């Protein structure tokens, strides 16, 4: 059984003037223990909103529908009452920019210790020892817990933020752009850490990013999101070598590779606004292979091989 399964998840934001923004429009996927999955797409595609919904941390003007199954139990069904026991304990998150969210006047250790004590996992000396353990787990000497955030480099603060998310030994870790503000060498260190943690602890990871090569490098599978939908889901190899959706192909086509073997081409236009109803495929105006049917209805999801599916009317052409 999947440790996490998301079924037909929707998220709406209420806007002033009785308007509504349909940020997540029915996404479904499963995640196995120890698996690393990428959730990729451009800004505004709904990827961050989707994982916030899984944490039950949406802002008050948002509502969610669908099912979020954690070990088979629907944690979305009962609202905060069913979400709260699992938040941080079973499913945890590293927020975008978490490394810059430490309180500058408190030591790193005390800020990790606080949730440990709040969650009732340990107190006083034991909590301190647990903090040291968590820091060691992410590659920081436990003795450094009495240092202040400014005494840590960006990479170390990001490690500490990951340690904090792991305080309650969750089964699922959601990481939102965990390496975006970091230099490439430090990024490599953090990626190596995430791979090690998932391998050693059996932790399942969802990495939200706009960076396809990152996902190709460390994730086994990825879901590509566009305008609130998952447009394609498959292994990273399938997505790169046998994309089903033109968006996946065009996104890879817009990504420079180091050996400069391919031309890079940008995707014309911009993603649609989600506060208006969209008829047909939302990617159609930017797509290089749209046909008449694309304007009429949202394309059905087609499965090309087990675990590899895409929502497109047009036959795949690599």
């Amino acid at each position, binding site marked *: 059984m999947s440790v996490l399964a998301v079924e037909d998840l929707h998220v709406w934001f209420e806007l002033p003037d009785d308007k509504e923004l349909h940020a997540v429009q029915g996404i479904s996927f499963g995640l196995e223990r120890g698996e690393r999955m990428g959730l990729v797409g451009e800004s505004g595609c709904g990827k961050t909103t989707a994982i916030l919904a899984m944490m039950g941390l949406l802002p008050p003007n948002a509502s969610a529908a669908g099912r979020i199954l954690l070990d088979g139990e629907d944690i979305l069904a009962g609202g905060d009452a069913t979400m709260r026991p699992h938040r941080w304990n079973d499913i945890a998150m590293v927020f975008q920019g978490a490394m810059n969210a430490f309180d500058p006047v408190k030591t790193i250790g005390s800020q990790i210790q606080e949730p440990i004590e709040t969650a009732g996992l340990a107190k006083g000396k034991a909590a301190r020892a647990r903090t040291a353990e968590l820091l060691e787990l992410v590659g920081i000497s436990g003795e450094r817990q009495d240092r202040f955030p400014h005494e840590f480099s960006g990479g170390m603060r990001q490690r500490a933020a990951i340690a904090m998310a792991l305080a309650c030994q969750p089964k699922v870790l959601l990481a939102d752009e965990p390496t975006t503000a970091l230099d490439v060498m430090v990024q490599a260190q953090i990626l190596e850490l995430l791979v090690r943690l998932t391998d050693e602890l059996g932790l399942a990871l969802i990495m939200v990013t706009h960076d396809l090569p*990152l996902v190709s490098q460390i994730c086994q599978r990825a879901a590509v999101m566009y305008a609130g939908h998952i447009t394609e889901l498959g292994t990273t190899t399938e997505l790169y070598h046998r994309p089903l959706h033109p968006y996946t192909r065009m996104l*890879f086509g*817009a990504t420079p*590779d180091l050996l400069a073997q391919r031309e890079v081409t940008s995707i014309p236009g911009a993603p649609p606004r989600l506060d208006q109803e969209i008829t047909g495929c939302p990617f159609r105006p930017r797509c290089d292979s749209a046909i008449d049917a694309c304007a009429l209805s949202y394309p059905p999801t087609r499965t090309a091989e087990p675990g590899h599916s895409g929502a497109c009317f047009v036959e795949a052409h690599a």
Partner: protein
Amino acid sequence: MSETLLTIEDLVVQYRQGRKKVVKAVDGVSLTVAAGEFVALVGESGCGKTTTAQTAMRMVPATSGTIRYRDRDITNATQSEMRPIRRELQIIFQDPYESLDPRFRVKDIVAEPLEIHGLDNRDERVRAAMERAGLTPADLYLERYPHELSGGQRQRVSIAAALALEPTMLLADEPVSMLDVSVRAGILGLLNDLRTSGLGILMITHDLSTAAHFADRICVMYLGRIVEEGPAHEVIRNPQHPYTKALVSVVPQPDPEQSMQPEILQGETPNPADVPTGCRFHPRCPVATAACSSEDPPLRPAGSDGHRAACILV
């Protein structure tokens, strides 16, 4: 050989930190950019790449060394002496969300440099610059405000404002790092077209893949120095300096089947206030020898033609 536009020689930029400490942000950098040439200055945060560019624009004073634009020494040029140079040498900033005044319409943003430089035929020049920057037809954008534009369009507006003065060279500081992947290639393609039309381009970036795709030459900086430079494909495919080798090895590849053997350096770039003795890379270098802690190697020829690296082992 095309005309050399920008020449930086042995540039040192230092800041005082407290009473006694001196931080050398740039410590002996030399580079040139010729007309029609696309040069990428690559390195991690804090390596001095932005300071180098800002010093070339005289936004930051040089401590020593010389900066020449064409045949004029501008190292100590006054603001009024810089004015004609600034018409020729324009800069594009990283963040098009921050660099455009939200109260100005696009036409006013693009016309502002013309006003400052007292140039006539503003309407005509504004339209020409916008079309050159890919904002076509210009009429569609002239009356708009920045908030009505996408990130890519905003960056085109800042490029148009730079082009309005018909410069001979552009400095682009991380021109696409704030933009979505899907539109980056368009902006970089635009810079590339401008290069083809004869402009010199110096792009500052931390992204080796982008540099590999668009630059003719790559200069790799580490802790205030250029440690390797050469033709872009040579630097990427045949890196000579151990730092460049490590940097190239950790760049994620879009193809998951392309096997990676990342050589991950531990730790982070040292503080420029506390530069190691000898080769400044030796404490993190996987192949450092005893000599590396005392000898500070200059750039010297390595690999193919025009390829140089600062390492005693090459």
